[in-house]
């Protein structure tokens, strides 16, 4: 059964359409990460599912039940906010117990549920404290605990890690993932951080300008980005995107003045069709036989080195080399292995699939 279904969900503020029709079917128990740049509508989408905003059009189904017009309190959801939104005047225990009290659970049941959640999150020793006496990571855990005790049908996470420092973020990321797996609750997680997106999600929904551009597993998004936006957004450093021309019968591309046969792939499209060729920095091979690019900047990162090159025409290229301190001269000769090339239609930006795909 679907944990969450969205049908042509739209939202406008004033005359501006923020969400331009989102359709989605998320299997029960999966974690969906909604990722995109600021202003792409991802937070609005989450708030619509939470019921904090009313959609302009479309339907929302949680666990098969239509909740489109239902008050947040009756949707059986729990949400973790970016700033945690803990009740400052209540102890950690009361923060977690608040929703349960409203639901009329007995004292003993509340005690048991809060104890269970706090044991899970390592909060046992902090139950009597007020939020202001907690560190950022502890507050984050309390916010998680408040969501867990409710035993909801759906978890919503609104950039919950962005207020933490880098080290804690990595740690909490792992904890969230483990918890979600263990509890098996369908979850929606909004972030602008593509590393969080890749590591947390069973599935990704990449949003761009209020439109969902790709809905797939993280590896699928990484290996087969649906368009140039996704290609540039997922992966760090970003995929190189270079203007190219489809050659002959579509079995080769010319990019950077070099014609590369596509090793058995053939695209439908006349010779001369303008395309955008993508290649990830880690897939570029430095080889004396390759085309030369003038080096602009070398960034040694320790375990790897980034080489930024640019040609007078404005085309830029990033190459990721293993190892540190790699000696790179004024020119870097590079080869683009054909099996790692992504081909996008330059007019639409959409990914092109070979006509003879296996």
């Amino acid at each position, binding site marked *: 059964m679907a944990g969450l279904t969205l049908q042509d969900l739209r939202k406008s503020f004033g005359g501006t359409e923020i969400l331009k029709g989102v359709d989605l079917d998320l299997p029960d128990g999966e974690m969906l990460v909604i990722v995109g740049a600021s202003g792409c509508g991802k937070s609005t989408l989450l708030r619509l599912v*939470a*019921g*904090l905003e009313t959609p302009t059009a479309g339907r929302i189904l949680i666990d098969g039940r239509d909740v489109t017009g239902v*008050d*947040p*309190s*009756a*949707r059986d*959801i*729990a*949400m973790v*906010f*970016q*700033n945690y*939104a*803990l*009740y*400052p*005047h209540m102890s950690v225990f009361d923060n977690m117990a*608040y*929703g349960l009290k*409203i*639901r009329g659970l007995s004292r003993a049941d509340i005690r048991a549920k809060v104890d269970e959640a706090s044991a899970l999150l390592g909060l046992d020793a902090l139950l009597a404290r007020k939020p202001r006496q907690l560190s950022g990571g502890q507050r984050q855990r309390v916010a998680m605990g*408040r969501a867990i005790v*409710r035993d909801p049908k759906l978890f919503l996470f609104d950039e919950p890690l962005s207020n933490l420092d880098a080290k804690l973020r990595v740690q909490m990321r792992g904890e969230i993932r483990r918890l979600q797996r263990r509890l098996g609750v369908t979850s929606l997680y909004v972030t602008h951080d593509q590393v969080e997106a890749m590591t947390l999600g069973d599935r990704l929904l990449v949003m761009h300008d209020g439109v969902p551009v790709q809905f797939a597993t993280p590896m699928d998004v990484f290996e087969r980005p649906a368009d140039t936006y996704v290609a540039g957004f997922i992966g760090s450093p970003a995929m190189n995107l270079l203007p190219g021309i489809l050659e002959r019968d579509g079995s080769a591309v010319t990019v950077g003045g070099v014609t590369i046969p596509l090793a058995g792939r053939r695209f439908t499209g006349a010779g001369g069709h303008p395309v955008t060729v993508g290649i990830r920095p880690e897939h570029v091979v430095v080889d004396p036989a390759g085309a030369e690019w003038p080096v602009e900047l070398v960034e040694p990162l320790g375990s790897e080195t980034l080489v930024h090159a640019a040609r007078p025409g404005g085309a830029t290229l990033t190459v990721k080399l293993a190892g540190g301190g790699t000696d790179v001269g004024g020119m870097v000769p590079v080869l683009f292995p054909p099996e790692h090339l992504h081909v996008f239609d330059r007019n639409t930006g959409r990914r092109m699939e070979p006509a003879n795909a296996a």
Partner: protein
Amino acid sequence: MERRTLFPGRALPALLILPQLVLTAVFFLWPAAQAIWLSTRREDAFGTSTAFVGLENFADLFADPLYVAAAGRTALFCTAVTALAMGAALLLAVFADAEIRGRAFYRTMLIWPYAVAPAMAAVLWVLMFQPQIGLVGAWLNRVGIRWDYRLDGTEAMALVIGAAAWKQVSYNFIFFLAGLQAVPKTIIEAARIDGARGFHRFRTIVLPLLMPTVYFLLVVDVVYAAFDTFATVYALTQGGPGQSTQTLVLKVYLDGIVNADVGSSSAQSVVLMAGVILLSSLQFRFLGRKSAT
């Protein structure tokens, strides 16, 4: 964040605070000292000479049933004015905080009474409640409810409480509205998702977060009702009928200026002064404690 400006030398800083010091000395320290001095003296019947009597004026005061009655009346007046002004302001602020059409207009209108001079406020209330010509007063009598605050002490008390509270609603409203807007939106949203609705959400989440504002206004309103309502009450009832609306501040004025008992009146104002100092120090201690945490 603290901003400090340091001036060189001593002459310029002294010059800059001089006006404030002069005003404080002329309008506060000197009259206060005079009141303390006069409270220990008694005039003869013709006002030609005064004699030192120690604390006798104070002893007479606390033994005087009229003074004790006025103190009780003042306590009732303060309680009623504070409760009414705060209750009404909180209710209005909650409504004004909601997303409604014409919110800016509504808020501006609610702040207006604060700008009305106390005597003008009294005139407005007379125009409403005067038994013959007042809109509400005349209507009450017309429909058969006997109403004349000039004859009935209870009605007079209700009227001055209403007018004094009305004057203070605006002030409280501004603070309550600011307090409500300072409650983070996400906390309210978290409570909504936790299942809290309407009044329960207000009582368990919003009100506790608003308590610092409530305490602050409590002190401000009590001080206002006790010491700052002279003009409103005097313009409405002159303390009458009888002594039924004579609060402590009115009694200071009536005893000292009208009845020319300067010694007793001064003793009364010294007692009031002690009251103000006590309330202010309470307020400072409370606010100091708040900002320390």
